């Protein structure tokens, strides 16, 4: 049975539709990534699924419970980490953990061991007497995760958990998520970072409240029709402009590399070389490559050619 299931889930704020007819399902023990730019509706989805925002229409179930009719029992089974640091800055690491353990009525027997384990795997043990407000960004997020896990939830909702966190701490954070996955915890994570999305089992691409695609990472990449050609040359910015006006397919500039989505690889190759040579630009390399999520994103999103 699916741990998370939504059916035409919609939320409007006045005239604006924040989430439009979202239908998706997430299996038990899966890491599902909700991917999209800022304002896509990721936070709204999180809040709807955790029962703190009422949907305008549509249905959703988490762990078999309805998010509106059974909002309170759901709360015993889920952990949630909001996008903004939601813990008390004037309480210490340990006090925050203890407070949440009490709110979830974690039995006092065995609680010490649970808290010690959480502190250990979040590497927060040396800082347990420090005020939460004085932690670094990465440590704050790990404390947030530890507090969300204090009652051993079945489903974990993480709203952009690594936003503004350095790459090393991000890797630590994901190491923890993989450990949790081994304990069959279902993880629903939202992110605007595409490299992070690649770490998920399945992803959903969300844009302006609409789900554009929902599949495994490879499946989503397969949605890209045609072959992706990577061009390395001098004056890449100028070259990209030339290729764009040559109308050879979608062109995206990534630093010193140009990605061109060609319908036919061989014809595309000749056309690119020809167009650049005509302008006196020499090609250093030109090869077909595996698309990244970023390529899919830039080609799927309306007006997304970066």
């Amino acid at each position: 049975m699916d741990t998370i299931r939504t059916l035409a889930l919609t939320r409007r704020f006045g005239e604006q539709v924040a989430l439009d007819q979202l239908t998706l399902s997430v299996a038990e023990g899966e890491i599902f990534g909700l991917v999209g730019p800022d304002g896509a509706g990721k936070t709204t989805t999180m809040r709807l699924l955790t029962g703190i925002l009422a949907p305008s229409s549509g249905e959703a179930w988490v762990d078999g419970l309805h998010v509106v009719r059974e909002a309170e029992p759901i709360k015993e089974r889920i952990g949630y980490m909001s996008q903004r640091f939601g813990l008390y800055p004037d309480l210490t690491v340990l006090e925050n953990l203890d407070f949440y353990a009490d709110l979830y009525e974690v039995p006092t027997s065995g609680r010490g061991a649970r808290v010690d384990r959480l502190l250990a795997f979040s590497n927060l043990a040396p800082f347990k007497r420090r005020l939460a407000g004085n932690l670094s960004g990465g440590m704050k997020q790990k404390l947030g995760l530890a507090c969300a896990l204090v009652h051993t939830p079945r489903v974990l909702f993480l709203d952009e958990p690594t936003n503004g966190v350095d790459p090393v701490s991000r890797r630590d954070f994901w190491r923890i998520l993989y450990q949790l996955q081994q304990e069959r915890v279902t993880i629903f994570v939202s992110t605007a970072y595409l490299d992070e999305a690649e770490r998920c089992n399945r992803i959903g691409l969300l844009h302006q409240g609409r789900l554009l695609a929902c599949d495994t990472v490879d499946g989503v990449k397969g949605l890209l029709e045609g072959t992706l050609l990577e061009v390395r040359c001098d004056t890449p910015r100028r070259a990209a402009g030339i290729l764009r006006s040559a109308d050879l397919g979608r062109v995206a500039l990534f630093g010193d590399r140009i990605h061109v989505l060609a319908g036919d690889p061989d014809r595309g190759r000749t056309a690119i070389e020809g167009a650049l040579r005509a302008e006196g630009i020499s090609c250093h390399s030109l090869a077909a490559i595996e698309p990244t999520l970023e390529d899919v994103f830039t080609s799927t999103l309306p007006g997304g050619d970066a």
Partner: protein
Amino acid sequence: MLERLVRMLVKEFIQVLRNPRMRAVLFVMPVAQVIIIGYAVSTDVRHVPMAVYDLDRTPASRDLISWFEGSGCFDVVRRIASEAEIREVLDTGEAKAVLRLNRGFAETLAGAGSARAQFLLDGSDSNTASVALSYAANLSADFNRSILAQRFSRTAGVRLEAEPVGLVSRAWFNANLDSRHYFVPGVLAMLVAVITVILSSMSIVREREIGTMEQIMVTPIGRLEFILGKTIPFAVIGFVDVALIALITVFWFRVPMLGFPPILFLGTALYLLSTLGVGLFISTVSATQQQAMMTAFFFMLPAFMLSGFVYPIANMPLVVQALTYLNPLRYYLVIIRGVFLKGLGLQVLWPQMLALTLLGSAMLLLAAGRFRKTMS
């Protein structure tokens, strides 16, 4: 349920007491304020600066002037020699009153006529002026009585023994009409209201503003547990402050405590129900702490003005009088003055207690009803 509530309370107390500035605001400021205000707030009028314009310069005129001076109510600060100076002393505020005695004062007095003395007052401070005026009226009446007695004994040869009607007045509950006895307990009501309304008005909105509310909403904590957890700490702090201020009132300012102190604490408990209810209500309707603070101030000012703390309710227009029935301060003032100065018990104060109970429960229920565990 109880465990969660207890934990919520522990958390609130840690947060409040960990902050040194908060500790000062909660426990040092009220004490300092009651001491300062206790000395400063007084409507007793003594030593009114007075100028004298004596055109008569006779023993009789000097007699009347010394009668004023000797009363302790007036201090002669200047003797004026010209008409123009009257204006000058009143304009500069050097004197609040001028006593003018025209030429021929003694002569008229020695005959059988009525001598005129003019008493000019600076009416810009109407309160002081009216008190000074009544002092002056009493002084001249006393002076008249002594003159009449002299005349009577001179003409009839016997001493005037008794007045036709002798009014013997005693002010009960505050024999010396010491305004401090009246005001200091009122200051207590005011300070406790300021602390509890402002703190509780910021409490819930603060969690919303710093983002902790969202995290709390996804926990199984009940609405009631959360609201109680946010209210009880301020109630406890309110009680501690009342106890501190009451001790200062009794032992420092020597305001008598004639009643049974537990009655005062019962009244306080019911009063806190209302102030915290108002505060929580403000907290549920405000989006930011700043908004909550402003709204709290807008509540406080009329609450003080229309409580009977300074201005008697009986003097207010009927519509405003009706409004004061919604003001918790109105009832609490009656209770504290009743307990401190009159030694009243429940058999007299029960209507006030009942009113506070109703008002407080209504406010708290309204606030709790507005509080939701969801966002909008």
